[in-house]
């Protein structure tokens, strides 16, 4: 049960943290339609996060609800992959191309993962959450793919930026396919998916999109974590603390409050 709770946190934190990043675009997107689309995707992921954190809290059985888990955990208790947390803009750490590059990779990976969970997780709640998520993620992936084509095959400038965006996010890709022991144990029980199994499928999808956009997968190695510990182990990048400070400050400043 502790494993299942941890697994729900992993998948929930991925969605929560990326949702927080995507929502930063709100009122800053390159066009109005994109403001709507980014908010949409952020909302879908936030919805997934809420279901998964709620489920994690139930399985844990210590009385923590989605808000206790989102607002009152410390950084090392967050289990998301680092790809979700890095600053891809609109701030100084990135831009629209980097955002799209991340979304393309993330949604392709998560769609492959959720498809398998939906089809065959022995945990019925997880299977149901994944089934709902599959439709959303297919849209996210399609949206990111469309923009990858437009930017990759748009102007010279946009092509260069899309390449730079891919280079920026690529070091975080290996981690997506690096199984944590919790994932391995649960995969053995038919509850989770071993992410290593997803690699060829995801690579295939990315190759098709990138090829059509006149791009290719960067030949960059995966970014190691300190002593080999990664996001799933609660070891993050320096960007994570700032993200959580903003996310949690008000909730922490008024601990007894109801919202």
């Amino acid at each position: 049960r502790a494993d299942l709770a941890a697994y729900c946190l992993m998948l929930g934190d991925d969605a929560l943290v990326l949702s927080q990043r995507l929502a930063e675009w709100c009122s800053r997107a390159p066009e109005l339609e994109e403001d709507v689309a980014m908010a949409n995707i952020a909302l879908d992921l936030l919805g997934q996060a809420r279901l998964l954190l709620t489920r994690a809290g139930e399985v844990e059985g210590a009385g923590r609800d989605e808000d206790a888990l989102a607002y009152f955990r410390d950084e090392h208790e967050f289990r998301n992959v680092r790809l979700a947390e890095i600053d891809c803009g609109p701030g100084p750490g990135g831009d629209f191309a980097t955002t799209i590059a991340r979304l393309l990779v993330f949604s392709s990976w998560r769609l492959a993962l959720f498809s398998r969970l939906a089809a065959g997780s022995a945990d019925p709640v997880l299977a149901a959450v994944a089934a709902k998520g599959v439709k959303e993620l297919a849209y996210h992936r399609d949206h990111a793919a469309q923009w990858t084509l437009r930017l990759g095959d748009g102007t010279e400038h946009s092509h260069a930026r899309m390449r730079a965006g891919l280079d920026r996010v690529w070091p975080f890709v290996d981690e997506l396919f690096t199984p944590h022991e919790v994932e391995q144990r649960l995969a053995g029980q038919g509850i989770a998916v071993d992410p290593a199994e997803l690699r060829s499928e995801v690579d295939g999808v990315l190759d098709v999109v990138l090829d059509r956009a006149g791009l290719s997968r960067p030949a960059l190695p995966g970014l190691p974590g300190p002593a080999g510990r990664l996001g799933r182990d609660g070891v993050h990048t320096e960007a994570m603390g700032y993200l959580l400070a903003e996310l949690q400050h008000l909730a922490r400043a008024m601990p007894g409050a109801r919202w």
Partner: protein
Amino acid sequence: AALEQRFARTIAADHRIEPRDWMPDAYRRTLIRQIAQHAHSEIIGMQPEGNWISRAPSLRRKAILLAKVQDEAGHGLYLYAATETLGADRADLTRKLIEGRQRYSSIFNYPTLTFADVGVIGWLVDGAAICNQVPLCRTSYGPYARAMIRICKEESFHQRQGYELLLTMMSGTEQQRRMVQEATDRWWWPALMMFGPPDADSPNTAQSMAWRIKRDTNDELRQKFVDMTVPQAEKLGVTLPDPELRWNPERGHYDFGTPDWAEFKQVLAGNGPCNAQRLAHRRRAHEDGAWVREAASAYAAKQAARAAA
């Protein structure tokens, strides 16, 4: 002249003018200006509330707020589409907004300083907007009226959500109650100013009413809003910051004090607490996104060329 008579008859019969119908130039220009201003208000209005998305204190409130700001972008899109039926160009209107040549609602030139502001904006600002906009659902120009029906529906929903947030906060800690009161104090008078200057100082009202673009005067709408809001404030348990506010049984309305019209004019003239900030934010988003829009056009052109080849 025949066209003009037909237009006048349509208006008099309370029927809709549609895009292909003949209409006087002044009517067209007035509508474009008004709808564009309304669209700009939705877009600029994303900022004060968007300011709290990353910091919303519960995931449910974060989702509600994000969805609301998304709706505002959607409203902007419908409204720009309505101006396009009148022959306006969205890129041109955006340029006018960014260069400060067209207005947006002054209310968005005030800062959101606490999360209670999110609730109070829903309650008072959306409430006032609805008072202004419900009559526009019957406005004489068809596409505008239809956009307003959809928008009003969504705004009523936002208004209820804002009020519900405030109810929740008022049943929370003492600190939360103080936040709600303090936010109410800051937003009350600016909300009253949303109905525009007193009728005596509103030169365009008469023509707009004749054309049935507008259906009530500023002061009528303001009174309606006050009458609607005072009981809500009582239910909530907050005090509206107006010592002159009291029920007048003879009029059957609440009497209330005079907003600070000097402040109103100053904000309108561009010197409110956030005018410069809001425009700079919009301008920056527009400029930072230029290369993306160019890429999308270039791609579309290539695709069209490929399809043609």
